């Protein structure tokens, strides 16, 4: 082969820095400096932390925002690591799957605040050091991010087309190469979408995670969350404004530097491309693609992947793996495994019951279930109201691509908006107008989650085939008939997806939203969320556990009995072919 026939992309190996390189260098080094500075406080001692109270000065926010962002990034990395291991194990091992997937379903429904019980554990890991508290905060953020990511990756792994798997095996790809060359890229688009959702969800709980108090143990870590908590305590409206500004900036930075490039590159991972689809653009991605410096980094990564593969001799011996597999796959191993699982499950159940019932009487369990029903009613009404508001708006927006491209990022930003920031307005209003907290605190629950309905309806409406729209226009289908026969059925499956997320999120948010305070004024609504929040603040582990178990059961049961059948129906009915 003559050298002049080689494609340019193959020939270009000599490193010559270009314009995009300068930008890449600056950004990479800025990132390292940021890491070094933000990590500085991680290793100090607890007493020094307590000696330096949170400052409400706007300039202090730079440091706080950096700390908070770093925590979220670390939690995101941990979530990715968790996703890649947990979901892979669940997808590859039939035996692991039977326990890991229901467990994930349950974990997803456990309220984030429930995990703050672990604070004491983390503090004891590193006595007297800040690191333990940091780990607890990061763990809390992690619990708000990891589950849906793991689910999405598990589903992707299960839906890789057979022929692609066969191709990978036929071409002798080992586990390592198959993971990086097939499984991860295949799962990437869905995973990135879920990472964005998780990041938004994470903000909602930043306030809780940075200013943790469990019983007598209270730790306030420097960050935007504790800044907000202090501002609420001191009724400082200006500080709340600054905090919002800082959050918006961090969210925008994440969007530009992390998620835009990720989604834009995920478009490259798509299997098929619908007509009229334009891949998203991102200047940061362009920079990465054009920068030769980062190109070298990418090539080094590819070489590292290859280093994981040993050069194999031409005549690979027939592997005896098959025979050992037969023994391992036998039914008896299955029976043993299931028995072990059942025994462990029973043991855990007994232990929990023993722990909870040592303190709590049976009557109280009934009371907690009633509280659960109140919260259930609240969630149901809120979802219904959000549906009435956002479905028509979503359809309207989705049918207008230019409006949609404007609305989508705004909705994303709003989804990340922590409810706590609205406490001042809501609490003052409730006090001022002497309103019932039971009703007027409720909107806080759906504040962050209603946007999922809007997102999904917009996506659904923009996916209505042009032919369908022309056909309905041609037939003169208008007004209510058009909504009933065209728009609503078309967006229904998308709506259900959004509503499932919104309902799950609202349950989770109930803990933050049913108890609201502004300075000395504290409002409490009746509900399971308030019960858990109060038990946690009082350091009452038994009641916290009871509340969490009941809440998780409510979520799982509502999902199984209501959302899942609805989803299955939507899937079946509205799919052509």
């Amino acid at each position: 082969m003559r050298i002049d026939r080689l494609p340019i992309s193959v020939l270009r190996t000599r490193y010559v820095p270009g314009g995009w390189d300068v930008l890449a260098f600056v950004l990479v080094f800025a990132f390292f400096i940021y890491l070094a500075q933000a990590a500085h406080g991680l290793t100090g001692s607890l007493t020094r932390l307590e000696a330096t109270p949170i400052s409400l000065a706007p300039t202090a926010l730079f440091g706080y925002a950096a700390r908070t962002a770093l925590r979220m990034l670390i939690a995101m990395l941990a979530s990715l690591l968790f996703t890649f291991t947990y979901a892979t194990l669940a997808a590859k091992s039939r035996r692991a799957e039977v326990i890991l997937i229901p467990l994930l379903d349950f974990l997803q429904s456990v309220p984030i605040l429930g995990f703050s019980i672990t604070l004491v554990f983390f503090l004891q890991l590193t006595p007297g050091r800040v690191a333990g508290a940091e780990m607890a905060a990061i763990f809390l953020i992690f619990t708000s991010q990891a589950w849906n990511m793991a689910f999405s990756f598990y589903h992707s792994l299960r839906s890789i087309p057979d022929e692609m798997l066969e191709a990978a095996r036929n071409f002798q790809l080992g586990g390592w190469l198959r993971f990086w060359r097939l499984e991860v890229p295949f799962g990437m688009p869905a995973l990135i979408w879920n990472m964005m959702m998780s990041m938004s969800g994470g903000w909602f709980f930043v306030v809780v995670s940075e200013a943790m108090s469990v019983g007598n143990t209270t730790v306030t870590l420097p960050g935007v969350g504790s800044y907000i908590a202090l501002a609420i305590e001191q009724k400082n409206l200006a500080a709340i404004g600054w905090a919002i500004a800082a959050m918006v900036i961090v969210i925008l930075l994440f969007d530009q530097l992390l998620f835009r490039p990720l989604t834009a590159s995920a478009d490259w991972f798509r299997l098929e491309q619908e007509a009229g689809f334009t891949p998203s653009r991102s200047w940061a991605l362009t920079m990465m693609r054009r920068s030769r410096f980062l190109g070298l980094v990418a090539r080094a990564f590819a070489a590292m992947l290859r280093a994981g593969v040993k050069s194999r001799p031409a005549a690979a011996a027939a592997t005896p793996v098959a025979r050992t597999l037969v023994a391992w796959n036998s039914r008896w191993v299955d029976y043993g495994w299931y028995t072990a699982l059942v025994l462990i499950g029973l043991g855990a159940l007994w232990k929990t019951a023993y722990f909870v019932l040592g303190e709590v009487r049976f009557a109280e369990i009934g009371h907690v279930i009633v509280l659960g029903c109140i919260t259930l009613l609240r969630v149901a009404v809120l979802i219904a109201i959000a549906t009435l508001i956002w479905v028509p708006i979503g359809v309207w927006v989705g049918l207008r691509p230019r409006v949609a491209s404007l609305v989508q990022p705004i909705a994303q930003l709003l989804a990340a908006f922590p409810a706590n920031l609205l406490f001042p307005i809501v609490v003052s209003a409730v006090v001022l107008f002497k309103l019932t907290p039971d009703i007027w605190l409720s909107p806080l629950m759906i504040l962050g989650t209603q946007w999922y309905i809007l997102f999904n309806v917009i996506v659904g409406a923009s996916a209505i085939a042009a032919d369908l729209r022309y056909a309905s226009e041609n037939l003169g289908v208008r007004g209510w008939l058009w909504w009933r026969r065209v728009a609503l059925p078309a967006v229904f499956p998308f709506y259900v997806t959004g509503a499932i997320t919104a309902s799950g999120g609202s349950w989770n948010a109930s803990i933050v939203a049913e108890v609201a305070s502004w300075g000395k004024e504290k409002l409490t609504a009746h509900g399971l969320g308030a019960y858990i929040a109060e038990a946690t603040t009082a350091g009452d582990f038994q009641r916290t556990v009871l509340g969490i178990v009941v809440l998780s059961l409510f979520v799982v049961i509502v999902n199984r009995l209501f959302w899942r059948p609805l989803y299955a129906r939507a899937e079946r009915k509205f799919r052509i072919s």
Partner: protein
Amino acid sequence: MNATAPELNLAPLLDVHSVCKSFRKPDGDELVVLEDVNLTLRPGEIVGLLGRSGSGKSTLLRSIAGLDGPTRGVVNYLGAPVSGPARGIAMVFQSFALFPWLTVLENVQLGLEALGVPVPEMRKRSLQAIDLIGLDGFESAYPRELSGGMRQRVGFARALVVHPNILLMDEPFSALDVLTAETLRSDFLDLWGEGQLPIKSVLLVTHNIEEAVQMCDRLLIFSSNPGRVASEIPIDLPQPRHTQDPRFRALIERVYVEMTARPRGEPRAGPKSERFPGTGIGTTLTHVSSNVLTGLMEAVNEPPYNGKADLPVIAEEQHLEVDELFPAAEALQLLRFAEVEGGDMKLTEAGVQFARGETDERKKLFARHLITYVPLAAHVRRVLDERASHSAPKSRFFDELEDYMAEDAAEQTLRTIISWGRYAEVFAYDDNRQAFSLENPA
């Protein structure tokens, strides 16, 4: 072809010996997909596996590739049994199975990367393969930027780059349009004829009879349920073969005759009732739309056929692929609207009556034949008649069918019976409720 040791050229590359493949059904019974298949592949030949969908030919191909081991029997490759994905056996897939996130070059390199080939050599060999298969200039393109034909070229390059002894092809051209498939086939045959391909022999799975006759040196015809080799046809026409060559047409005719022949063991002639397939409710039905059935009967009834048509001729005229034609012919045979034998289709009296009738008459005739000759339809109707509610869930029949066949076959059979029952207005089906009923929405 690569020059290799002479003794290797004499010994078979691949020896498939009494291979059986069965799946365990939920109730513990075995479902046999492949039964006692024997096949030898020698260096320098292209062997075709021809059969209808469901005859297990793709399953056999996967057993040979070591992707899915046989239940009984052995696959010997170069004298040693295959027990996992074997090196030296590369595969080309129907759906191309390219990785969309890798460029053409990266896709082609993949197999070498997995073998740990050093980077410079990997690059050199990949570019050679790309060059050979006519993908020059597309190295940095992503699969989604390519047309179907170009995508499959990447599939070929990816398989060839590892220098396999055997190339397995699983309906490689069936996802392409006619013209593209033709170009790709002849390009492949040219390279093969010139000895430019780094492979020793080819095993091709197809349901396209013309493609099989054009490409192969030898054809193995598979019969279905369970899949086994029904006959073998050597093809000794010199390449390039021309489709209008009378000898080529004669071979096509012969393949049709073989494919419509009764499986061994069944009487070739006898009382009429014994000549039709399908005995109990456990017969797998392949879904054929009533439109296709009607169209086919009308076409056969009209001149120049006047009730009797040569299958290859009618297939070409009606633009029916083999995997559409044979199920349609079989359905007509099952419903006693036609007889199929010796590569011909002959309408029965009822078939002629149907072809001449108006819509209403046709529906009545179809309904009568459906209830009389398709036991499952009669069964569904009887259950609905007996029940006070005149309705029954789909799952009831699904569970029954699962005693006889695999899950997807049961699904397919029910889909067929629903479609035919709806056309004949023998019963109704509500997909939302997943239930059969006697209610007529009209």
